[in-house]
């Protein structure tokens, strides 16, 4: 049994069939990439799996159990984390607090205890502050530990989202174009970061336009085109697939 099984997944926005009859499985512990031209449905696929959108039809199973119709916060509980292509950073909070929010489910969220600042809660919060600072160093943001989120540059905010997702201690992380808009040096850093995340045992699902990064990193690749599955397999298989060469790689070559 795979960690994640997607069967015949479809969603229609009025007339737009953003994802059509897509099926694939992701085994635990691998790096799985989803590629395809702009508008292929990659982000929509992430939104479906993480509960942000409800599918028109189809099935999504986590550990063999259907998760269709579950809300994002329920899925977070099941070990799913994600970042966003269009940044979703809380600009009304500090960088560190953004990461701390990632640990939401691991904390005592009681309102009364919080208002009275019980010592146990205050101690846990102090520990979390340390932990979040550690995570910021881990994702290469040590210089922003005391920064406000709204004072950070784009590339740093992308990594802040990864830090927040890691604070959840997830089993499965969805990264939507973590290297988009980054310079070559930053892209290499993100590449290394994704490797570190995978090496720590977290299953990574990656959407990325940087082909070099995708080909080097991925155990398996899913190719989408106009919402449909075009190909699926190892990087070698995908690279050699004639449909892919014609429809996607060919167009870029």
């Amino acid at each position, binding site marked *: 049994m795979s960690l994640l099984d997607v069967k015949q997944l479809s969603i229609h926005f009025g007339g737009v069939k953003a994802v059509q009859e897509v099926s694939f499985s992701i085994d635990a512990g691998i790096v799985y990439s989803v590629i395809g031209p702009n508008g292929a449905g990659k982000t929509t696929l992430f939104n479906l799996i993480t509960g*942000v959108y409800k599918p028109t039809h189809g099935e999504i199973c986590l550990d063999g159990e259907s998760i269709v119709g579950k809300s*994002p916060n329920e899925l*977070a509980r099941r070990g799913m984390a994600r970042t966003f292509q269009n940044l979703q950073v809380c*600009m009304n909070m500090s960088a560190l607090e953004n990461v701390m929010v990632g640990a939401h489910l691991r904390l005592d969220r009681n309102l009364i205890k919080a208002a009275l600042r019980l010592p146990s809660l205050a101690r846990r919060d102090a520990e979390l502050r340390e932990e979040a600072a550690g995570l910021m160093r881990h994702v290469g943001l040590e210089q922003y530990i005391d920064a406000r989120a709204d004072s950070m540059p784009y590339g740093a905010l992308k990594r802040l989202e990864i830090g927040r997702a890691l604070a959840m201690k997830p089993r499965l992380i969805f990264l939507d174009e973590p290297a988009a808009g980054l310079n070559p040096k930053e892209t290499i850093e993100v590449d290394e970061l994704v490797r570190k995340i995978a090496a720590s045992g977290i299953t990574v699902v990656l959407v990325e336009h940087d082909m070099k990064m995708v080909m080097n990193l991925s155990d398996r690749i899913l190719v989408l085109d106009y919402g449909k599955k075009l190909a699926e397999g190892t990087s070698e298989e995908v690279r050699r697939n004639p449909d892919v060469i014609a429809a996607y790689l060919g167009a870029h070559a």
Partner: protein
Amino acid sequence: MFKRAYFGLYLVIVVLAVLPFVVPNSFYLDLATRMAINAIIVLGLNLLIGFAGQISLGHAGFLGIGAYASAILPTHFGWHPLLAMGAGAALTGLLAAVLARPIFKLKGQYLAMATLGLGIIISIAVRNEADWTGGPDGMPVPAFGLLGFELSNDKQWYWVVAVLLAISTWATLNLIDSPFGRALRALHGSEVASSVVGVNVVRYKVAIFVLSAVFASLMGSVTAHYVGFVTPNLADFGHSIELVTMVVIGGMASVYGSLIGAVLLTALPQALATFEGWETVAFGAILMVCMIFLPKGLVPTLAARFGKGG
């Protein structure tokens, strides 16, 4: 960063402790008491509006429920004032919770409309049920006593309210820097991001709405006993707007802004009384000027100008 936030609390406590000894007469003590009552309401309302990013245009309605519970239940049914206050708060909490669930599944503008509607309904209800509420003329409220001791003079009331304000300020500072408070601020920053890290967005919005409503209800009860008389004006739309204005002028998502907003806007009508009939116009003009030059509110703007995190 947050350790520094508590320095302001000591300042608040010192000011509250010294005030009764320096005010020239009971007029100012009364003013200070009303400022402190409003400050407590505004602290709760700012959690909802400034920190969680939601709106309520009917908070005076909740205040009215508390005030009238404290007037009606002891007068007509002989309830102990403390029990009446609790019943008002419980009723408010229940009403807020029942109303909030369906509304928060929708978007902001519906919340504004629904809270506006609720406030108006409550205000009309207390005006019309004259047999119980005294109608537009209002009704007297029995004194507040506890364990054979009766709160009667202004000084006693001042101290009670001052202690409540100090505790509320401390609790609010604690709350915003806790897992609960961070979740609230996060859903303001990005609903989708907070939901994917596990925040049950609807539940948090309901919780803070209910909490701020209950605060308003409790302070409505305190106001009723302190003044000794309730009128429907307490529950009016105009009063709701006044409370929202205190939040906005003082500063959204600023604890000390809440206090400053409450102090200034409670004092302003007194200061403007010399304008004889034009005070509402002057009031409006001052608000407009504030909104143009200090769109983030007083405390956050000044804090940014002088380089201190608000």
